[in-house]
């Protein structure tokens, strides 16, 4: 049936864009209310994310991580959107949002503990960073962001929640139910879909026959398509959406059009299903390069600055690497510590058994 697929996408409208595309002449861009310092900070956060992401992939190749889903190519979509939020806003990530974690100052060693299989949620404190745990079941975290937003609204707290998910996630019932709840309860939610064109091996044209931003029509709230490789454009639409959410309880669906430059995860071989040319085309729109050349042409940042950021990113990644490598598995006791607030008898029995066998194994006891 694949032949039939995807004509729908042709209706897609050009995305909102601020930065010139590669090759386009430098031009004045409308002020988006960011100080030069902040404009540079956006670059810095993308650079740190890029470097940390490459390092994480390397760590997996070296067997230091069980698996890792690279974000390379999506730095602008993640950093631009996360940076547009207030500290009090909550972020509910999926599994590919290391860039957003960087913006929130999450310790990446604690973040990567999810992928080192040290602990499922990672070991960082989600509440401290208002950055939720890594969530793997596609689309499932959308409902949590909606519920949290409803709860904050009930408390009269003016905050927004932003939930990240991919193009594939829009096919799940949870996406639909979450959007509908948000609209009905006027929950302050920003639905941020990173349309990176692929859901593992399935192209977005085989995922849906309508432009993703248009799906907002089904719920009665705004839908926006933005150039996801344009950090300033992503920042602007997210900022506006977050304000609509906080002030008027109007949710927004943002489709950030970007591209997954790497494989779905380190376990994936993308060459099996997509042409190298497609990847090359998108590499030409690299979000860091595009932003860097604008920063330069507009005189907001110079070589020295980029040099220093490079240096910082290097150390940042090195520190992450050494932290990851140094970390060991969690003690077995922890397996039973947080199943419930208390430890019911049947679990106490089981904990004792686990520890007994571990001890015997350690003491190398041969049975019988």
């Amino acid at each position, binding site marked *: 049936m694949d032949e039939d697929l995807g004509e729908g996408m042709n209706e897609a409208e050009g995305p909102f864009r601020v930065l010139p595309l590669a090759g386009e002449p430098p031009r004045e861009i409308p002020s988006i209310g960011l100080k030069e310092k902040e404009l540079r900070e956006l670059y810095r956060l993308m650079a740190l994310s890029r470097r940390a992401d490459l390092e994480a992939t390397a760590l997996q190749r070296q067997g230091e991580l069980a698996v890792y889903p690279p974000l390379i190519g999506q730095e602008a979509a993640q950093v631009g959107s996360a940076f547009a939020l207030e500290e009090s806003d909550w972020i509910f990530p999926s599994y590919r949002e290391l860039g957003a974690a960087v913006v929130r100052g999450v310790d990446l060693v604690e973040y990567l503990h999810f992928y080192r299989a040290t*602990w*499922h*949620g990672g*070991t960082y*404190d*989600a*509440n401290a960073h208002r950055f939720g*745990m890594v*969530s793997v*079941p596609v689309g*499932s975290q*959308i*409902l*949590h*962001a*909606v*519920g*949290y*937003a*409803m*709860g*904050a609204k*009930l*408390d009269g707290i003016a905050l927004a929640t932003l939930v990240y998910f991919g193009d594939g996630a829009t096919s799940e*019932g*949870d996406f639909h*139910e*979450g959007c*509908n*709840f948000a609209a*009905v309860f006027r929950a302050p939610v920003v639905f941020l879909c990173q349309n990176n064109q692929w859901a593992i091996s399935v192209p977005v044209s085989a995922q849906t026959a309508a432009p993703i931003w248009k799906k907002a029509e089904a719920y009665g709230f705004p839908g926006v398509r933005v150039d996801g490789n344009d950090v300033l454009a992503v920042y602007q639409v997210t900022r506006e959406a977050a304000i609509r959410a906080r002030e008027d309880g109007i949710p927004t669906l943002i489709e950030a059009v970007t591209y997954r430059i790497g494989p779905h995860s380190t376990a994936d071989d993308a060459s099996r299903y997509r042409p190298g040319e497609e990847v090359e085309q998108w590499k030409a729109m690299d979000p860091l390069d595009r932003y860097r050349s604008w920063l330069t042409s507009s005189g907001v940042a110079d070589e020295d600055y980029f040099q220093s950021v490079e240096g910082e990113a290097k150390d940042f990644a090195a520190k992450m690497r050494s932290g990851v490598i140094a970390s060991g598995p969690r003690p077995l006791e*922890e397996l039973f*510590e*947080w*199943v*419930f*607030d208390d430890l*019911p*008898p*049947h679990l106490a029995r089981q904990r004792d058994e686990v520890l007994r066998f571990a001890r015997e194994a350690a003491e190398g006891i041969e049975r019988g």
Partner: protein
Amino acid sequence: MVKALNEALRQSLAEDPRALVLGEDIGKLGGVFRVTEGLQDEFGTERVFDTPLAEAGIAGVSLGLALAGWHPVAEMQFDGFSYPALDQIISHVAKYRFRSRGRQAVPLVIRIPYAGGVGAAEHHSESPEAYYAHTSGLKVVTPSSPIDAYRLLRASIADPDPVIFFEPKSRYWSKEEGELAADGALPIGKARIVREGSDCTIVAYGAMVARSLQAASRAAERGVETEVIDLRSLVPLDLDALAGSVRKTGRAVVVHEAPMTAGFGAEIVARIMEDAFDYLEAPVLRVTGYDIPYPPATIESHYVPSVERVLAAIERVVNY
């Protein structure tokens, strides 16, 4: 029992400012069984509200509300309509505290009217408790009487962890005034011996407790003294009460409405095997629903364990 549940919700909403009640038709209508009757009028549409018709949404959004510091009590309108919420419950509600190293707890109660014997249409008489009991991270509670319904629901709402609260529909209209006098908090995880006996133990929960008591008195007429245990909570399971009784009687029959295969009765048999094997004088038998879809109401009485079937099992183990 409906009144007792309604009162438990009212008290919890009154005493706990973070408690919320949500679900389909639980507001103005007061729920299809009237369990939430009057609550929206009393506590307003912010704390007692109807949701869109989406069970996964109800479960997932309730989890989000819990993360925001609320104590949601969500209703699944019927047993057979709780299944769309299973993914959110299994993948998130049950795992959140564990995954977050205790930092993000989910003090959520999901109420599910369940089981049959009420002449209802398809999908309105299911007993899905085993799905939840097998899901690590959930507590599974089910009352058998109005007073227990009141006390167990209060305890469930106060519990810091997710509780799946099964309400036996066929007991909704039961009164048992006598018991309603009783009071005091009820710890989750403690079974109750509703009838003492020395010859045989019946293990039951929910609507099958009353059914088992009927069988027990019938058995008594023939000189068989049966002890009846109401588990009250399937998870945590009161292992001591179970082993204690069977060590005394040496014989046991487990009764539930759900299909036999991989039903919770099997767990009870296995626990008795592990904790009381030396005392067993006969095999522990199960009297349960059959391994077929819940039947049409006109013939459901042949499916739900009857007094006769329970009696027959008692006789088999006693005369073994």
